[in-house]
């Protein structure tokens, strides 16, 4: 027990060191030109998206392929309110409203789909949801400005540092939501549902309630990311806001790191963003081919994720690399 206690203490310590580095770093360099600042900004967003999927997909085993619906709704809520001058530039109220919009959608859709559909059918239903919303946005008339999308002048742009810190804040919100939920009775209920729905229900777990909580919490975080995306691009159209990238990449990152673990998505987001960036720099032509091949290789060789692989082979890794002994 004592060893475990120290380990978790060391984990907090390392987390704090990283956090301090992330807070200080943009002030040490020219944030507008720094590649690392931009890289961290995208990685933070992916961490949030991955954790947003991880709650329902990883912990509760309800694989959603409709995260782009929440992302798109978040972006459009921000873009529409911003155009109407109801909210300002990089307005936290606007972000929270966007998150709430996505959550409302998540609760409605969750109640409808999760009560009826399981497994693949649920995945397909959510995929259909995202595609329906895309078509709705294309045909939304003056509200969404159709396929052209909503254009907002980029005069408002101030500094990359703001985006960086908002992304960091959203990632921390996502981490906090998952951390608190996973360590509460909700987390236990979710894992019970994933492992065996029938026996969870027999033990008195309200299946629908917990599934919808996880799904809606994920929707909230995803909506926040969508909102920041709208502020970042100054132009929201259906192909960007409802892009399947907002589903595929986070899901992949979560599975690479370890679905249903707290640190898995974080690790996955860093590794995958890193791999994509390196591929993009070294061989821009082949970048997407390389990334896709990487997806195939991950599923072939690491289907349970890195975190579970590491804890499964802990002793062997420590023998080879004793430096990790006091962190792992």
């Amino acid at each position, binding site marked *: 027990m004592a060893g475990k206690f120290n380990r978790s203490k060391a984990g907090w310590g390392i987390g704090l060191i990283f956090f301090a580095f992330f807070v200080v770093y943009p002030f040490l360099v020219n944030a507008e030109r720094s590649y690392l600042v931009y890289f961290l900004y995208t990685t933070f967003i992916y961490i949030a998206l991955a954790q947003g999927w991880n709650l329902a997909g990883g912990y509760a085993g309800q694989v959603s392929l409709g995260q782009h619906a929440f992302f798109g709704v978040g972006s459009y809520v921000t873009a529409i309110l911003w155009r109407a001058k109801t909210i300002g530039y990089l307005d936290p109220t606007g972000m929270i409203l966007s998150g709430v919009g996505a959550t409302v959608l998540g609760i409605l859709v969750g109640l409808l789909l999760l009560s*009826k559909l399981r497994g693949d059918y649920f995945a397909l239903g959510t995929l*259909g949801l995202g595609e329906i919303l895309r*078509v709705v946005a*294309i045909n939304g008339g003056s509200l969404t400005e159709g396929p052209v999308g909503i254009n907002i002048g980029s005069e408002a742009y101030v500094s990359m540092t703001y985006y960086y810190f908002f992304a960091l804040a959203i990632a921390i919100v996502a981490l906090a939501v998952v951390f608190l939920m996973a360590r509460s009775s909700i987390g236990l209920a979710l894992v019970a549902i994933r492992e065996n729905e029938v026996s969870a229900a027999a033990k008195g777990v309200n299946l629908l309630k917990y599934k919808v909580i996880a799904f809606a919490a994920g929707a909230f975080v995803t909506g926040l990311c969508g909102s920041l995306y709208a502020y970042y691009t100054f132009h929201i159209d259906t192909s960007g806001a409802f892009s399947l990238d907002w589903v595929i990449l986070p899901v992949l990152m979560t*599975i690479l790191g370890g679905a249903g673990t707290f640190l898995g998505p974080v690790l996955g987001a860093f590794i995958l963003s890193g791999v994509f960036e390196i591929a993009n720099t070294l061989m821009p032509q082949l970048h*997407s*081919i390389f990334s896709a091949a990487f997806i*195939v290789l*991950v599923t072939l060789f690491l289907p349970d994720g890195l975190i579970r692989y590491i804890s499964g082979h802990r002793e062997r890794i420590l023998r080879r690399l004793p430096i990790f002994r006091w962190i792992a």
Partner: protein
Amino acid sequence: MHWFSSSTTFFQVLVNGVFLGCMYGVAAIGLSLIFGCMQIIFIAQGAVMILAAYCIFWMVSFSSISPFWGFLFIIPVFLGFGWAMYSGLFQRVAKTGKNPSLLLAFGLMVLLEQLMAFFFSSNFRSVPTKYASTALRLAEVTFSVNRIIVAFVAFISTALVFLFLRKTIIGKAVRAVSEDMEAAAFLGMRPEWVSAVTFSIGIALAGIAGVATCIIFPFDPYFGFIFSLKALIAVAFGGLGSVGGALLGGVILGVLESLSAYIIGGGWADAAAYAVFLLVLIFKPEGLLGRSYGEKA
């Protein structure tokens, strides 16, 4: 009938929908077979279709063979391709669970799309055929010859798959394995071998659907994804695991799209299809013809 200017228009829209639906149907049968044996949704189906479409495109570009001969050449090639894909990739991943298989299919789809975009460019291609502008007219309703041939191929392949599953010993093994893999193994069937056969047939059907696509539509490397989705909807209509249901589901979907494109406009046709898809999933998840998989925990 006040939505339509005349009953001829109505029948024309209906006929177009049925022909469109036949293509969805062929892709859907493949998907349904693969689901039956592996319990995964093979989302790369559309990308495999487009790969077949490119094969035909290059065959026609470099020789003067009619694209319709492509059906004969695509079937063995894609059977082999499916076999390689199953024994090289899916057999290994299927053991670790369903989510990795789904993800693998996804990765494969993106990989195929990107490889095609890299080697063949992402320009739209189309395959010219001799009968492109030939059409039969029957009581003022036009039947394009290309589409008639495609529909014919769709029915033949459905019938062949149906006969294969009902009448041959391998087909019976395929049905047995998709019903209960363990019991089938106890009775001396090799689930892996049977799954490989099923998967190969599914891929060959995707190839056939791809040939049909390239005869009728211009395509680019990313065109397949929407077809995967359409095939999925068709499968959901018909019920996972039912061959006739998949074709019927495809035809229903085609007619639905065609009608809604005419009545409420092309932009909404996709949304209408997805909305009906969601409703079917919610209220009749076993499909219109499918057997119920029930509460198999």
